[in-house]
């Protein structure tokens, strides 16, 4: 039930004042990209859903303090991507408690029309560190500029540019058929 004809700042103001329809408008507008960004960074469907949910809950808890002159999306994406990076780091350093594990089963859903090369892309993305995946996703899925990414992740712009460059180089290495084409 999105509210039509009203801007994002009006939705934020309405949500701050307790309007459920305005909150829903914000949610419907921002959930899909936040969810997808989390999924591409953590590469785990359940964790991505949880991270995006938690980011929204965190945003709701902090809503009254939010400066409505600022856009809502970057605020939310900052929470989502930082949590996704933290989750991915934690996954790699978790000490084993029990022996062998249930086989990891997460995988992307089939691409529309049986897209033949989504699996290599998924694997290539998995070869990157979470920090590199995050900047790639912020730049090429959420379409932030390197300067905006630097602000979101509290990184120097040079670091963002470097991660973008190295991430893309690694993707090219992992996807040789694209370079050959």
């Amino acid at each position, binding site marked *: 039930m999105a509210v039509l004809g009203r801007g994002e700042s009006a939705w934020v103001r309405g949500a701050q004042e307790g309007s459920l329809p305005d909150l*829903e408008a914000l949610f419907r507008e921002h959930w899909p990209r936040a969810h*997808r960004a989390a*999924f591409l960074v953590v590469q785990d469907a359940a964790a991505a859903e949880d991270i995006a949910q938690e980011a*929204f809950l965190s945003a*709701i808890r902090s809503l009254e303090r939010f400066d409505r002159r600022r856009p809502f999306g970057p605020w939310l994406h900052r929470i989502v991507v930082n949590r996704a990076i933290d989750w991915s780091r934690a996954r790699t350093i978790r000490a*084993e408690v029990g*022996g062998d594990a*249930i086989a990891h089963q997460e995988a*992307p859903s089939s691409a529309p029309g049986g897209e033949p090369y989504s699996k290599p892309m998924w694997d290539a993305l998995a070869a990157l560190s979470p920090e590199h995946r995050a900047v790639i996703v912020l730049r090429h899925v959420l379409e932030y500029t390197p300067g905006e990414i630097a602000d979101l992740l509290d990184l120097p712009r040079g670091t963002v540019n470097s991660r973008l460059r190295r991430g893309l180089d690694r*993707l090219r290495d992992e996807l040789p058929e694209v370079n050959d084409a």
Partner: protein
Amino acid sequence: MRDRELRRRLLLLRPPDEIGAERRAWSVARPAFEEREPVGRRWARVVRPLLAFAFALALIAAVVNPPVLNAIRDALGTDTHVTVYKRALFSLPAQGRLLANSPRGAWVVKAGGARRRLAGYRDASWSPHGLFLAARKRHAIVALEPGGGVRWSLARTGRLAAPRWSPEIDGSTRIAYLRNDTLRVVAGDSTGDRLVNPSVASVAPAWKPTDAFVVGFVDGTGRAQVVEVDSKKTLWRSGALGQPLALAWSDEGTRLLALLPHSVAVFGHNGKRVGGVRIPGRGVALALQPETRRFAVLVRYDGAQRSGILTFDADRLPGSKRLLFAADGTFQDLAWSPDGRWVVTGWRSADAWLFIGPGGEQKIVSGIAGQLGSGTGTVRAFPAVASSGWCCSPSG
């Protein structure tokens, strides 16, 4: 690779069940938004603690007053052997460590009386050898060392409950837990979290002590189900049981007991109902005595502020019924000592833990809410003895 090509390929990588995920997320976000504290009620943040403090002072005065202890003695009668430890650091009457869950966190009490609070953790339960604990935080399932070190944390939103650690099989373990109305299982090293059943009742899952990861649970239709979790194969499913309150396996895994509001049902290894017994009151808790088929049931007598503990032999129902203890007030949980000689219950209305031992010997530790609860001594903070919470190592 050109940017446009990269973008196109990234956009093809979509999370599974996007629409369902959005629906679930909104179902979580909406109530969270609606439950936000309106600005106008913030004055209550100041006033409420003052009221709570005054209430706590009044309650502490009531608890430490000798008439309260006298009332306990009156409830027990004069022909029983009773030892009352009056608001003191205590020791357990048997080896092992006792796990309790309070509003302030989980407590591990060692046999010698030393105790440690694991702040902020709820619903804690032991790993098979008592080396770790599975617990939940608000939005995570956590594996802990009894000393408080966090081994791993699995972030999950929604309503989390009842993490239960499986037996160890070939060096591997699993943890079953409830998330909203679903049953999920994760490996003991935090990997492979996955859905086992999409619709379950809010009854703690019970692991079968066998050579495969088999869990019993109550599904959304009120039936007991037993599933081999790695293959997701359903081994058996009972008929409708109404509203089961708890499940427990016998030590060798040949009997599954279901506590129902006014009876206990016993199922054999293939799901066939092999026994059952009515109980005189409303069932509250059920616990199998280690290395036997004897079990204890905590009942709240209908129409009376009185509770009792009954024991039965699962193979000789109902003739084996024996009243272990009964008294006025509210009891809330049950656990056997690792050696099977003692059973403990939380006597909530008396703010005490009651240990019943061989020959009916009774030991009471009073002032539990103050020692292990909120620190204010309020009965609201009375800690619950965890399911199978008296564990494990003889070295305690």
